[in-house]
C-alpha cells in the first residue's frame, strides 16, 4: 500500500489564507432594555403560528405529515393511526430467506455471528441426513437464534452473509413485548417473516446440488 503524500487527505498543507467572521454582540438598545417590545414580538410570532395551526386543524387543512414534512405548520404524525413509511435502507427486524423447497437458505457458516458486534446471534450447525444431496456439500442451521433485545441493528450480519440468507428488509421495527423470552427470535419465526414485498426468497442465484445444470463439484459426485 503506497502513500502518495501529495494527495492523501490527512497530509494537505495548511491553508494559508482563511477568512474569519466576527460574530455579533447583542445590542442593548432601548428596544431590548425595555423588554416589552421584544416579548410582544415573540408572542405575536408564536401566537400567529398557534392560530394558524388551530385554523388548519379545524378546517382540516393540516399538512400531510409524510409527504409535506418539510412545510410550515404542524407535521406531527399521529402514530399509530398515521405511519411514516420506512426508507428502503431501513434496518428492521431480521428474517431468514428460504429456498424453493422451504428449507432455510442459510448454510450455517457463522459469518454473521462472527461479524455481530453485539454477539446476539447463536447458531448451531447441523449436517443433512444420509442420502440428502446436500450432505457433505453444505450444512444447515439446526438452531438459529437472534436476541432482538441485544441487537443494535447495525446491519453487519446482513453485510457478512455470503448467501443472502439473512436480511433486515422486513420494514418492521422491534415491537415491545412484556417478557424477555419473547425477544428471542428462533429459526421458525425468522423464516416466517417476509420482506416488504411479501417475498421470502433470496436473490442468491446459487444452484442447488442435484440440479441437472449444477456446474460445481461436490464431494460425493465429482465430475
Amino acid at each position, binding site marked *: 500500500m503506497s502513500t502518495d503524500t501529495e494527495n492523501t*487527505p490527512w497530509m494537505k498543507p495548511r491553508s494559508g489564507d482563511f477568512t474569519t467572521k466576527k*460574530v455579533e454582540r447583542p445590542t442593548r438598545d432601548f428596544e431590548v432594555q425595555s*423588554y416589552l417590545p421584544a416579548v410582544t414580538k415573540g408572542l405575536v410570532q408564536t401566537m400567529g403560528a398557534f392560530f394558524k395551526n388551530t385554523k388548519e386543524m379545524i378546517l382540516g387543512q393540516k399538512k400531510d405529515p409524510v409527504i409535506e414534512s418539510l412545510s410550515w405548520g404542524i407535521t406531527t404524525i399521529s402514530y399509530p393511526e398515521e405511519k411514516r413509511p420506512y426508507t428502503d*435502507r431501513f434496518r428492521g427486524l431480521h428474517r431468514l430467506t428460504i429456498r424453493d423447497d422451504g428449507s432455510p437458505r442459510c448454510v450455517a457458516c457463522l*459469518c454473521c455471528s462472527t461479524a455481530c458486534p453485539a454477539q446476539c446471534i447463536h447458531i448451531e450447525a447441523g449436517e443433512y441426513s444420509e442420502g440428502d444431496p446436500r450432505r457433505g456439500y453444505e450444512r444447515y442451521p439446526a438452531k438459529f437464534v437472534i436476541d432482538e433485545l441485544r441487537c443494535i441493528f447495525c446491519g453487519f450480519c446482513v453485510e457478512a452473509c455470503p448467501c443472502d440468507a439473512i436480511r433486515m428488509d422486513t420494514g418492521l421495527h422491534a415491537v415491545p413485548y412484556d417478557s424477555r423470552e419473547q425477544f428471542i427470535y428462533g429459526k421458525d419465526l425468522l423464516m416466517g417473516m417476509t420482506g416488504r414485498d411479501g417475498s421470502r426468497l433470496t436473490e442468491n442465484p446459487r444452484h442447488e446440488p442435484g440440479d441437472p445444470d449444477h456446474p460445481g463439484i461436490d464431494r460425493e459426485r465429482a465430475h
Partner: protein
Amino acid sequence: MEPLDQDLEEGELEMPADPMMLNMGPSHPAMHGTVRIVVELSGETITKADVQIGYLHRGFEKMCERGNWNQCYPCVDRLNYVSPMLNNVGFSLAVEKMLGVTVPERTQYYRVALGELARICDHLTCNGAMAMELGAFTPFLWYVRAREMIWDIFEEETGARVTHSFGRVGGMAKPPTAYFKDVVRATIPRVLAVLTESEGLLLKNRIFLDRLENVGKVSKEVALDLGWTGPTLRSTGVPYDVRRAHPYLVYDRFEFDIPVGTTGDNFDRFMCRQEEIRQSARILEQCLDQMPDDGPINIDDPRVVLPPKEEVYSTIEGTIQHFKIVMEGIKVPAGEVYSYTEGGNGELGFYLVSDGSGTPHRVRIRPPCFAITQALERMIVGAMIPDIVPTFGSLNMIGGECDH
C-alpha cells in the same frame, strides 16, 4: 422542633454561617449527559465547585479492542451521539491513515456532506437545549424540528436515524442514494429559515441576553492552556479549526469563514454555533455542486473492502476474500497513528495502535469535551447558581464522548 421565636435572643436568630453544599446531578434536567456538580454555596454565590464526570462510562475503548476494525463503528457511533456521522468519518480516516490508503473522490465529498449535516444537528441540539434550559421552550421545539429534517436525510441514506454505523474502512457501507443531492438541497433552506426565525425570538429578549452576556467568560490564554478546541475555543477569538488548519478530505476546496467571538462568554459560544450552522450550509452547497454523480465508493483493494455481493455468490475468489475479511478482519500494518478531525465540539482525535493482526491493539480517543469540561469548575466559581445552567449548556458536554 421548637418554634424559633421562643426564648431566643436577637443575636441567636442569625442563620448559620456554614457553607451549604448542593448537589446538581447526576440526574438533573440541566445536566445533560449525566454529570454531577457539587457546589459549595455562600448565599447564592458559588465558592467552590467540584465537577464529577464518569457516570456514563461504558468502557468504549476496551470494547473496540475486542472485535475487528470494522466492528468499532457501532461503538464510535455512540461517542458523540448527537453527531455520530462525524465520529464515523474520523475513525475511518484514522484507520485509512494507518493503512496508507485514500478513498475515492466521490466518497470524500460524500463524507464531507454527511459530516456537515451531522455538525448542523450537533449545533442545533446544543443551542436548542441551551435555550430550553433558560426557559425558552418554543425555539427548542423549532430547532428539534429542523434537526428532524436532517435525521430524515440520514435515515434515507444510512438506514438508521441516530446510530448509523455507516462508515467502513476504505469507503462507505453504501453509495449515496440517487436523490441525495436533491433532498439535501431542499432541506437546507428550511433549516436555515427555522434558524433565523428562532433567532428572532431569542436575540432581542432581555432575559435571554442577561443570562448569557458576560457570564462564563474564558480568556484566549486560559482556553488554549486547557486544550480547548472547536466552537468554544473559537468563541474566545482563536481562529483554530481543524478543517482549515490541517485540511483533511476535500475541505481545502471550499470557501467558508471561521466564526470567531470576541469575549468568550456564553453569548459568543451561542452565536458561534449559530454562525457555524450557516457556514456548514455554505460548505454543503459547494460540496453538492462539486460531488461527482458516479464513480466508485470503495477503494479497489481486496484486502480491505468486501467484494461485491454478486461475486461472493458466484465465484470462489469472491467467497474466499469475503470470508477472510469477515472472519479475520482487515490486517492493518503494525504501527501507531494519531488522526484528528473537526468533530461537533472540536478536535476529535483517534490514537490507534495496531499489532498487525485484524484486531486493534489499542484504541484511544481524544474527546473534545473532556478538555472543555475541565474548565467548568473555574468558570462557575464566583458565579451564581442560575449561571451554572447556561454555562454548562454552552460547553455542550456530551457524556458518551467525555467518559471515554
